[in-house]
């Protein structure tokens, strides 16, 4: 501060240097961020080009960023016998749609009750939910309960229920709804509206940004889930997409068998390597396509979450 006057006097030289510093930082910034962006995108390009490489070329030269021999064989095979993939797709879509709508509704409703400042036990219930993030019984009791007590093994419900609600989302929802003025609750109550009606008619419409964000987080979790299937699903009719991909990646014999069941005559050699990569892309496709449009909701979700309620 004391040097303000002095600085004013040397401004021309200082300004020049400052300008040079800015240029230097810009160079560092553009170069580094371009490299980081390429680092993040590179694997996707690699998967794409590998899936479009002729199998014999992969066997001979390995995966390559620029294919030596271009071929759409893997994709045509996938789309020629799509039964298994479609089945996995429909399981995932069903689970995602049902799980997200139920989960979002319950998360919002729970968040709303906890956001009500006039609710006497809000802190007790908040702690009841929050404690589950601090301590858990571990995998084994949880697993045994689902299998032996709830008998959910090999049911579609086991793909939905475990991901239905998440304390973190409830807290984000609660803090968002806490920012809605109390006056809205008060005046609606004076008009004789029930708590549920207030939630449905007033709070839900006002919470659209939070609902969109949390809904997408829940949907992404369902879409990418393979863990519950790994633990609980052995029936191939109930395999969700990511788990199906997991199985296929690890087990070429399984892939061959599956292809045989669906009618592919496997005297020919399957283009296994390019097929693995093609399957990976097809399983990720919808997320990659939706990504540019949904990205901003996730960004706002991160900032929602960093505001403590």
């Amino acid at each position: 501060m004391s040097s303000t006057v002095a600085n004013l006097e040397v401004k021309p030289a200082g300004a020049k240097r400052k300008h040079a510093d800015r240029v230097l930082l810009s160079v560092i910034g553009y170069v580094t961020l371009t490299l980081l962006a390429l680092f993040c995108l590179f694997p996707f390009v690699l998967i794409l080009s590998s899936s479009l490489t002729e199998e014999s070329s992969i066997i001979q030269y390995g995966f390559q960023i620029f294919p030596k021999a271009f071929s759409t064989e893997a994709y045509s095979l996938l789309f020629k016998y799509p039964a298994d993939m479609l089945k996995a797709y429909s399981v995932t879509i069903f689970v995602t749609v049902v799980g997200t709508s139920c989960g979002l509704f319950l998360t919002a409703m729970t968040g709303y009750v906890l956001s009500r400042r006039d609710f006497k036990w809000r802190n007790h219930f908040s702690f009841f939910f929050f404690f589950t993030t601090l301590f858990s019984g571990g995998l084994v009791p949880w697993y045994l309960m689902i299998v032996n007590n709830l008998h959910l093994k090999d049911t579609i419900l086991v793909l939905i229920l475990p991901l239905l609600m998440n304390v973190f989302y409830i807290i984000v929802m609660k803090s968002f709804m806490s920012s809605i003025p109390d006056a809205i609750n008060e005046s609606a109550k004076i008009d004789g509206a029930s708590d549920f009606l207030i939630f449905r008619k007033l709070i839900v419409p006002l919470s659209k940004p939070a609902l969109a964000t949390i809904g997408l987080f829940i949907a992404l979790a369902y879409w990418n889930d393979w863990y519950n299937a790994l633990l609980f699903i052995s029936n191939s009719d109930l395999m969700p997409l990511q788990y199906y991909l997991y199985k296929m990646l690890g087990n070429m014999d399984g892939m061959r068998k599956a292809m045989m069941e669906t009618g592919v005559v496997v005297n020919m050699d399957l283009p296994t390597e390019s097929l693995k990569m093609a399957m990976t892309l097809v399983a990720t496709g919808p997320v990659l396509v939706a990504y540019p449009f949904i990205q901003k909701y996730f960004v706002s979700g991160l900032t929602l979450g960093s505001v403590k309620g």
Partner: protein
Amino acid sequence: MNRHGFWSDVKKYKTLLLMLTPAVIFFLVFAYLPMAGIILAFKQYSYTGGVFGSPWNGLDNFRFFFNSGDAWRVTRNTALYNIAFIVVNNVLQIFAAILLFEAVGKWFRKLAQTAIFLPYFISWVVVGAIAYNLFNYDVGTLNVLLKGLGMTPIDVYNTPSYWPFILVVVSAWKALGYGSIMYLAAITGIDTEMYEAAEIDGANIFQRIMKITVPNLMPTVIILVLLAIGNIFRGDFGMFYNMVGNNGLLFSSTDVIDTFVFRSLTTSNEIGMSAAAGFYQSLLGFGTIIFANYAVRKYDKDRALF
């Protein structure tokens, strides 16, 4: 008098309580009931007896777990990996966030952000496929490159010593977007008047970053790091399982508590011992998170979890 008060409150909050009921049942069933199942850690599990009917065996499960040498190995791996992830990921994310904010134009910022956030959206299974593409001995891209450079190909899936490095890079890759956007939001929240004051004082852009941006970011960094330390004994199962799977050759450097518990449960069927290992992890986790919260509370009361 008190009881009367309670029941009239129940009546008063009838609708709100009803609205909470599904969530309460959900967490009772999926979180609190399994907590009771912790007693399995002290039992000799049998399928006929189940959780409550199986005979007690004291601390045998724990003795087995600790005497096998697995306990130390998986605990050490879990903690060391998480420490490496915390350090590398945060440094990289802060660095990227500062550059995104200070060094580049708006249009490029959007573009770069879109690119680095993408890995966050894909499942660990897909990451496993990418790893396969890169590291497969015969056809993997890495060995293609090495051969192209006239070097000997390396057998990644048979060499435990490569994996700490690989897993740190993969973790950084997946978390870069999420973290840098979070830090970017924190930087955006810094009072612009401070920047103007620095400008008037003749600070150059590097001084501005080091004297204003970084110090103002520190509270956020400290909180996030402390909370991450609270989870230091929780391994990211999805990552380890999809990158390494059941490849026993790599366990010495890649096995974490979560993968160990999973394997003991599903492949070797040692129910009692895996319950004991899980309970041990829960206790460690509970201890560290209480400690982390205490530290956060000391640092900034308002940002503590509880």
